[in-house]
């Protein structure tokens, strides 16, 4: 216990401070209220940003308003706050805990890589792809210029040959070339990344290891469920193939559960094949017309709930950092959902329905 106190007392205090600066529910409701049919998206966005000037997003909101905001620049700016959060938290935690946080941040780099692959596959010029990338700042270690300027996907893979992603992409490239689909590359990247993340978590000492793997196990369960839903019910892949596309780690989800779920023909059967609490989460949305859309949302909301619970109780452990970053990520997702909702003039209820952390 004493080691945890020594290691986490200052980080815990800082993280609690950061948690307190997350948006509150009244602030969310006020933000969502700026939508409404008949308003120009730019106007609604500007109003939303003026409200954000009274929150922890004040500096980026002011900057956006001065430069003339667009949905794209607003989304990149809030993503930048997530990057800052990762940077700040990793700086607070030296050694293996900091390494875990840094590895968690790599997922943003992975997302950028997928954006580049998609852009290059569609033959978009670098100038069109670059604005879609999350600004990683000091966290970015991947040289992106060469992949951005690649003429085709194999050239992107070639450009990444000296990086941690090079080998896994090279092995998946023949499938891409046969099927002319990025699916193989993206799945290969995801599997490789999450396996690596798990190994970093497993390298934590003592109680941190147990707690981190428990939290990550929940995350991996949710990822596996989400992927099974997508691969089975949307892409209609075979159970054997789906099995290979899932992560071999988790908290409650076992291989037999994965097999059964991967053999289901509809969302209801899939939910029934899962253990609790996932069965209970999906059952209410299983028979809804938009069940597939809402399934992902309920899973992420569950993750947010897990994060909030992790912030209660004994505070001097890695779980506080992981939980805060999950909450921050959910908030960034929700802000982006808000901006998209403002773009399309969606009513507040519809915007809130798409969020992870607000409801």
């Amino acid at each position, binding site marked *: 216990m004493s080691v945890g106190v020594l290691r986490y007392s200052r980080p815990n205090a800082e993280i609690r401070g950061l948690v307190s600066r997350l948006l509150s529910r009244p602030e969310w409701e006020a933000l969502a209220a700026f939508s409404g049919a008949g308003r120009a998206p730019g106007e609604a966005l500007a109003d939303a940003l003026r409200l954000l000037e009274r929150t922890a997003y004040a500096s980026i909101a002011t900057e956006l308003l001065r430069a003339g905001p667009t949905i794209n620049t607003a989304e990149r700016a809030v993503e930048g706050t997530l990057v800052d959060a990762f940077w700040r938290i990793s700086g607070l935690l030296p050694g293996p805990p900091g390494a875990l946080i840094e590895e968690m941040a790599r997922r943003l780099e992975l997302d950028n890589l997928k954006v580049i692959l998609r852009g290059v596959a569609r033959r978009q010029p670098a100038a069109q792809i670059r604005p879609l990338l999350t600004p990683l700042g000091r966290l970015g270690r991947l040289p992106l210029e060469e992949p951005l300027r690649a003429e085709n996907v194999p050239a992107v893979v070639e450009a990444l040959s000296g990086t941690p992603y090079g080998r896994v992409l090279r092995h998946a490239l023949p499938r891409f070339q046969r099927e002319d689909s990025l699916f193989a590359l993206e799945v290969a990247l995801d599997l490789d990344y999450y396996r690596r993340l798990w190994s970093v978590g497993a390298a934590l000492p003592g109680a941190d290891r147990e707690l981190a793997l428990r939290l990550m196990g929940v995350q991996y369960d949710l990822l596996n469920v989400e992927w099974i839903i997508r691969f089975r019910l949307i892409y209609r892949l*075979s159970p054997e*193939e789906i099995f290979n596309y899932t992560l071999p780690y988790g908290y409650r989800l076992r291989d037999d559960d994965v097999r059964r779920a991967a053999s289901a023909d509809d969302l209801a059967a899939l939910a029934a094949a899962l253990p609790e609490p996932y069965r209970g989460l999906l059952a209410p949305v299983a028979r809804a017309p938009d069940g597939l859309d809402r399934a992902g949302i309920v899973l992420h909301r569950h993750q947010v709930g897990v994060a909030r619970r992790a912030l209660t109780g004994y505070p001097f452990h890695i779980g506080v950092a992981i939980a805060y970053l999950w909450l921050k990520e959910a908030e960034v997702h929700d802000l982006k959902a808000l901006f998209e909702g403002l773009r399309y003039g969606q009513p507040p209820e519809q915007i809130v329905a798409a969020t992870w952390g607000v409801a």
Partner: protein
Amino acid sequence: MWTPLPMLRVELLALDRDFGVLTERLGRLGVLHLLPVAQLGDWADNLDWPEAAALAADYDSLVRRLDGVLAGLGLPRPEQGADVPVTPADVLGRASARLAEIEPSVERLLQRERLLDDEQAQLDLIAAQLELLRPLGISLADLGRLTFLYMAAGLVPQKNLARLAESLQPIPHALVPVRAVDGRVLLFAFARRDDADVLEHALRGAFVEKIAVPATFTGTPEEALTEVAAQRRQLAGRRAALGAERAALRTHYGAELQRLWREVALNRQAVVAWRQAGRTERTRLLAGWVPRDQWPALARDVSDATAGRAVLEEVAPRPPGARGEEGAANGQAIPPPPTALRNPPPFRAFESLVRTFGVPDYWALDPTPLAAVLFVLMFGAMFGDLGQGAVLALAGFLIASGRLGYGQRDFGVILGGCGLSAMVFGLLYGSVFADEHLLPALWLRPIEHIQFFIQLAIGFGALAVSLGLILGILTAWRRRDLSAFSFGPNGLAGLWLYWGLIALLALALSGSLNVPLAFLLVGVPLLLIYLHAPLSRALGWGEHRALEATYYVEAGVESFDLVIRLISNTVSFLRIAAFALSHAGLGITVVTLATMLQGVPGVSPLVLILGNALIVLLEGLIVGIQALRLQYYEFFTKFLAGRGVPYQPFTLAARRRERG
């Protein structure tokens, strides 16, 4: 030597029919630095020549095609410098037509070669896959004839193997890993024929790269590899035949293609020059800069080439601060003349040092001689050692004469100069190969007179900074920039301020300072610099936009910054003393170590040699960088903006003529 080569601006109007011959003569003469006609002023706006741009584009395309054909036949690009007339339209037509006749033969050859390459790649791929299977002494044909089992072979990423095995749990199967290959495992997977689909899906999910050997290959992998080797030999034979065909084409067309290339390259250079020109219906206008001493030769050649039909005008450039045609006071100014430095051989090598900072503009002074002297002086002072200096001087001589390295003459001369300077200072310091006991010091040993040496270094710094400011004043005068000359931080006020600060320090140290004197020495020049812009406006010197309130705040900060900068620039020269002392200290270390190891046979001389080598290489590099830094930052910034345009005359020769 102290100023760039004087230039004249030339405007040349010639008839259309004379322009080809004229271009050729100008190109052979190689003295005219072209100026785009559009930059002559508003009056030249309607004189653009779009056909020249189109012709240049056609030539680019032709050169690419020619390059392709030459490369296809394995012929080198010839050196330029053909002695052919400049007739771009004619050459373009003729060369295009001839190339259209030759290209198809070459293209057919290349096409067959590409097909051969594809076949080769296919064979290589099959061979690579068979190599993987080589350790298995099984018949490929037998593997393909299994009755009850379904088999697939491939490479699976090592990390995916466990998950693949798990995914196949529901069906009877066998996974036989054979060996590891580059992070993947060669795997044979077996399942019942009925479960073939399940196996295939699982393999797909595990990113297995299947190995597919064509059915034409039977027998064991070893036997199949023998077949592949035979096919490879056949391919080699066909490739040799293509090579012979290429040699025949080369013999037949080689000389002609290279002659064509030279003609095209020369005319292309002419057309590129034409893009700078203007035109009316019957005439062509060319403008540029020519060294004043070359003007008679240019005028003579132009008259000769055009039988006196051309009109040639020359205009002397005016400083930017002067009123008149060139003056900035008239709004859009014609770009300043290009800069051609003209230093005698000992200093010429140091022009590269100046150019690395930036090409001096035409109106600036050429600091090369001063830069040469200061650089070698500073280097020598920081690296004073007779023996080590001799090593550097020898290396410099060998490099400059081409005996060591190639094409680094300037560097060799600079290194040689530094070496000689180091030798001189070595004699003054009494140091030879790091040993200060072999020679008497003709002057002093830095390590024994540290304080004096420090004072000397700062004194030298004050001298260098003063020299820089004086050059800044002279440059402002050449540019007729009275504002910068008088009130600028690098002008008279700046020099007054600097010498005032030095005098202030001296008076303060001697206890003779009083406030009125301090104000006169420092306060007055600082005030002039602070009020630089409003004073210049009031006197009508130069263009100064209407002053905003923020000007006074900014000027205050800049004036304060100037004082700090002048002091720090001077103190920066302390590093001369610091590196001289560290050089001496390193030498003492080496000699002491060698002395301590005298009892061990052979080691002491080795320590001396290696130690000296380390000092020459490491400290030589560091000292060189420091001398360069002092020169660039503390000295050049006082007078050199480095925004000049280098003199690059239009030439049709293979090499530009060097200025003698």
